[in-house]
């Protein structure tokens, strides 16, 4: 449910109808360095929330294969995302490689996502109901006007924003923050992996040597780059 809702929001986000960062500020964060200059913030996307949900459904602990089947993603990709979530503190490794456990932070992220989503969709529902009610009242007022031959005392049709604020009783919508950046944080898939396999070679490959004729090209490129840098400095 959580994942389906987030996917719906992501779709709407792509079309510019909603801003996921506003609705789920605690869950959906653009990746980047934190304001304090600390470690990079970890963004959690719908695929990652799907993994967290799958682990929660398995009782908080699940292996990559199980998650892979549950989410319909390849085990390689699931493993990659799990390593990413582990780095973010949402998961921890248990017992043996490839088995992950939901951490309190992961539980909290899921809980927060559910809460924020419920709140958003409830507000959406109330807002739609209020709009429908208003339209019905206006239609009724128009009918009365024509039947009675005098204006009916109805307030003007409120703007969508006013309706949302009035109907839901929530604080006004915040201004749109900066655009959601594409996720650029990256976990090196070989970090921590032992690649010290026994190889029969140190250097490998065919070696071919020819007379070097790159000197002119190097000089030309260096001069071109130096010229560009000088020009930029002058400007």
């Amino acid at each position, binding site marked *: 449910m959580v994942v389906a809702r987030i996917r719906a929001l992501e779709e709407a986000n792509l079309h510019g109808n909603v801003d996921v960062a506003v609705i789920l500020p605690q869950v959906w964060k653009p990746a980047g360095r934190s304001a304090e200059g600390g470690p990079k913030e970890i963004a959690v996307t719908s695929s990652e929330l799907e993994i967290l949900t799958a682990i929660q459904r398995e009782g908080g602990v699940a292996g990559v294969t199980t998650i892979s089947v549950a989410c319909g993603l390849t085990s390689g990709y699931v493993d990659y995302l799990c390593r990413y979530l582990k780095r973010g503190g949402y998961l921890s490794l248990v017992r043996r490689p490839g088995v992950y456990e939901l951490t309190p932070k992961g539980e909290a992220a899921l809980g927060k996502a559910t809460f924020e989503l419920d709140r958003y969709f409830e507000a959406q529902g109330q807002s739609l109901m209020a709009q429908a009610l208003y339209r019905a009242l206006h239609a009724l007022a128009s009918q009365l006007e024509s039947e009675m031959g005098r204006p009916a005392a109805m307030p003007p049709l409120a703007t969508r924003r006013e309706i949302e604020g009035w109907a839901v009783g929530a604080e006004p919508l915040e201004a749109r923050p900066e655009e959601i950046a594409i996720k650029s944080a990256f976990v090196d898939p*070989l970090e921590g*992996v032992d690649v010290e*396999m026994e190889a*029969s070679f140190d250097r490998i490959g065919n070696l*071919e*040597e020819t*007379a070097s004729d790159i000197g*002119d090209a190097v000089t030309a490129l260096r001069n071109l780059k130096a010229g560009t840098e000088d020009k930029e400095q002058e400007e």
Partner: protein
Amino acid sequence: MAKKKAKGAPRVEKGKGLDVGTAFIVCAEQHGEKIAFRTQRDAFFDIEYSDFTKEMLINSKVNYIEKDDRLCVVGNEALEFANIFHTEVRRPLSRGVISPSEKESLPMVELITRGVAGKPAYEGETIYFSIPGPALDADLDTVYHHKTLEGMLTRLGYTPKVINEGLAVVFSELAKEGFTGIGISFGSGMVNVSLSYMSVPILAFCVTKAGDWIDQQAAAAVGETASRICAIKESSLDLTKRDGLSRIEAALSIYHDNLIEYVLAHIVREFERTEKAPSIDKPIVIVLSGGSAMPKGFLQRFNDVLARSKFPLAVREVRLASQPLYSVARGAVIAATADEAKK
């Protein structure tokens, strides 16, 4: 007392260039007055471990890696093994990039890269490695490819920097033209195109139909394995011939024409689409490079198709790179040496 330099030992210039391709990994570095290219086929073939097999590989001086209960034959011998067993080699890269789903092959890429690039001349030596441009006909994860290689090279002690594959061809071959022109790298996984003006890339992209696509299509057409088609293509294909072709040669001939048409059509379309279409006053030079441009007669085929196309720029000359297999690595080492000289 100052250390005496070993007599006769070539002076190694700083800076290396690495071409990480679907078929080959090539590293270029300068040794005094010479430029050295170390090439390794980017493929492996795994067989079940046994002491007898291992001994046989050692006696035959075949490069292998022991991995769990498997022995992975690396390099050209992998292709030979695949042909003997009438099956396919395994490729760590697919369509020009490391695939996130091929995690199992990642240690192989790291070992081959390490074997080809060797250790840096000093901690933090600059190495430029090639990356593809944005793919026009596929959804490719080039960020994963880029970052994985960057991590590998950093662990080896290098300062890695990236260079677009097409631009590397321009750096390698178009110095006399002021690094202005089009560099096209016909690789096995993809074809990279870059239009550069005074070393600045104006247009760069790749398409994912390339040498492997030719092999697969020809293999499907004649009922052979792609590995065998590839072996024939690399050893004896002559594209100047139009008549008296065998079934395999005829299929290869057709698909080479198709590939060239496909690449030129994409260049024309990108020119039409781009908002910053360059107006270059002089006719430009197009350089063809890469393993898939090496068959005899490829240049003539390209010229024939180009003459029939509505190419948007005046072309002075189309030429084959001086060393088609090495031009990307060569361009990368030019960039690296220029950077190192600034230090």
